[in-house]
């Protein structure tokens, strides 16, 4: 060791200007400290684990979803914090317990920087890396979706909620480590936080459940990410705002509690903790006032902006089929599948009296019923309007065949029934006759999902039972080509009350 040669200069008393310079120097010192903490932070080592878990659990499932912004963004919110919770909380607990584990507590206790400030530097560095990991995952999903989606732009609230949840995880982990610096605190704190997140998703049920405050809950918990949600109408930020308030409040409360044991700043720490807890508690209470709106999202009256209720303007994407089918551009990816599923019906009925000029998708109407069930309706009774089933190919494992079957059951039967019955079947006390049912059944080619032959939602009747003459007739009719069926219907189908013409006796009366 070498001896120094120059004595230390005396320290001047601070003046006003030097006090300001001192504040700037203190900020610079805090910046250097933060830089040091960033370089040597445990979260940096766990980022590969973050990415691996996200790829394995969340990313593959999200990318398997149809390329719709609402689906992917809401699913991202459902999954991201779940995948991040273990590595992020563990890294934070590890950093928080650092001083105790390394036996450095005495050494740092004798330094001038307040403990709270010192701990905040460590927490901030952990949070910065964790947030970088979170945002990287968001960026990958959003960039990939931007390349694939047919319409719209990223809803930012799901990403904001996930990003706001990261400081909450690090704060809880860091505080647990700082208060209980033992070797078991890291796994225990991680498990407790993970359990809390998992339990929250299991416990939430209904539109006014307090548990929907969980940052893993995107939209209404009983629907979740559905294609019809936040498409025709804006993504409502009400629940997201409450969730951000909750996570931010909890973060502030926990960080404030870290300072309570410091004697000088105790009052300030108590105030900060109280403010944070109040914010979090208010958010939970607000979540409990939620109600399900017809567009599938949660409205929280105190946070709701009526301007969000306006529908989103769009230019529909239409097919080039005999009867054009027009859908919201977000569903344009499915247009080929739709026209393939109901193409025969479109060919069959195009140009016939009473055929719609085009069939347009309308928004689904969601309603909460008893037992926290959800009904999805919409489209009215006209064949000119239809609702695309939420079970689009790729959503929750739905196959193309299942999607086609639902279309047949919805759009196909609606169109066929409207054309054959002209609405008369609904008004008639006796309902549609056997012959009419046979033609309807043949038109939709007995789709497998209609094996129950259930037209009850429309007419209170079933399609012809197997073996009866009407069933045999229906199967002969179904065996014809769409063009042949078109020709037959052109010759036999009366126009009923829709005609402006001749009053000719219609085939409908002959069919009866």
């Amino acid at each position, binding site marked *: 060791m070498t001896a120094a040669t120059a004595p230390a200069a005396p320290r001047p008393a601070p003046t006003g200007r030097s006090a300001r310079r001192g504040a700037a120097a203190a900020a610079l010192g805090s910046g250097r400290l933060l830089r040091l903490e960033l370089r040597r932070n445990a979260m940096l080592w766990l980022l590969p684990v973050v990415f691996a878990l996200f790829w394995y659990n969340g990313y593959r499932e999200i990318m398997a979803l149809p390329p719709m912004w609402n689906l992917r963004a809401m699913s991202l919110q459902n999954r991201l914090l779940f995948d991040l919770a*273990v590595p992020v909380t*563990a890294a934070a607990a590890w950093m928080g317990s650092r001083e105790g584990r390394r036996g450095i507590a005495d050494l740092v206790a004798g330094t001038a920087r307040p403990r709270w400030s010192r701990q905040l530097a460590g927490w901030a560095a952990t949070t910065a890396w964790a947030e970088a990991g979170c945002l990287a995952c968001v960026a990958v999903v959003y960039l990939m979706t931007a390349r694939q989606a047919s319409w719209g732009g990223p809803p930012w609230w799901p990403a904001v909620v996930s990003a706001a949840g990261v400081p909450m995880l690090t704060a809880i982990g860091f505080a647990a480590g700082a208060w209980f610096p033992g070797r078991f605190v890291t796994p225990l704190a991680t498990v407790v936080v993970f359990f809390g997140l*998992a339990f929250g998703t299991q416990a939430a049920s209904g539109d006014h459940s307090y548990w929907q405050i969980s940052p893993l809950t995107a939209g209404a918990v009983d629907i979740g990410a559905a294609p019809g949600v936040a498409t025709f109408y804006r993504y409502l930020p009400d629940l997201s705002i409450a969730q951000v308030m909750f996570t931010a409040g909890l973060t502030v409360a926990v960080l404030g509690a870290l300072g309570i044991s410091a004697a000088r700043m105790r009052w300030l720490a108590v105030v900060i903790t109280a403010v944070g807890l109040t914010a979090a508690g208010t958010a939970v209470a607000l979540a409990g006032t939620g109600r399900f709106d017809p567009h599938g999202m949660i409205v929280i009256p105190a946070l709701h902006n009526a301007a969000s209720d306006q529908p989103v303007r769009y230019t529909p994407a239409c097919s080039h089929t005999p009867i054009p089918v027009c859908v919201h551009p977000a569903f344009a990816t499915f247009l080929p599948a739709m026209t393939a599923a109901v193409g025969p019906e479109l060919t069959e009925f195009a140009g016939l009296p009473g055929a719609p000029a085009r069939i347009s998708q309308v928004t689904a109407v969601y309603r909460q019923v008893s037992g926290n069930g959800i009904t999805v309706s919409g489209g009215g009774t006209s064949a000119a309007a239809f609702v695309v089933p939420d079970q689009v190919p790729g959503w929750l494992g739905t196959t193309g065949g299942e999607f086609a079957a639902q279309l047949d059951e919805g759009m196909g039967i609606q169109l066929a029934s409207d054309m054959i019955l002209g609405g008369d079947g609904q008004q008639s006390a006796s309902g549609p006759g056997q012959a009419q049912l046979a033609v309807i059944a043949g038109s939709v080619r007995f789709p497998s999902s209609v094996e129950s032959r259930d037209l009850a939602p429309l007419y209170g009747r079933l399609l012809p039972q197997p073996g009866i003459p009407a069933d045999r007739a229906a199967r002969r009719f179904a065996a014809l080509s769409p063009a042949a069926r078109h020709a037959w219907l052109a010759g036999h189908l009366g126009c009923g009350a829709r005609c402006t013409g001749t009053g000719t006796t219609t085939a409908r009366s002959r069919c009866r």
Partner: protein
Amino acid sequence: MYGHWDDYGALQMPLIFEAACAAIIAVAAGSPFGEPERATGRWLPYLRLGTAVTLTGLAAGALAAAGTGLPLAGGFPDILRNVAGLTGIGLLCATVLGAPLAWTGPLTYLVAGMYGLYTDWHPPALGTPWLWPARPPHDVGGALCAAAVFAAGLAAITLRGARERRGGDGPG
């Protein structure tokens, strides 16, 4: 968590407790004595083995006892398989990374296991027996994989013990 065995939420919650026990057992594999213990005689491997096996059995028994009288989803076979397999992962981590970081394996696997259970009800299911929490309780493949990992972990901790590094393990 008290539902029928095929209620996936009822299987996910117990898995969290099982992973917590496994993580604690793995961290406990670290010696509080350090190098002097390694300079002792031939009983040390048996001590390590006995400690790991005893703690695993106690954990499984305690979890089963906690569910006594309840129609616990998965039952005792599920508990034993999961605790043993997760502990094996933790012991292997202790050997490679050191006891203070041994929790990384079980807790990372917990997330994968939770997802595996989720896919059982949201296909396509991840059917590999190496993801044994997602397999039915009496599934032989899952039990064999968990047993193999447990045996490997026991062997590693018995023969080599938890890794020790000067100044402790991990960053920070």
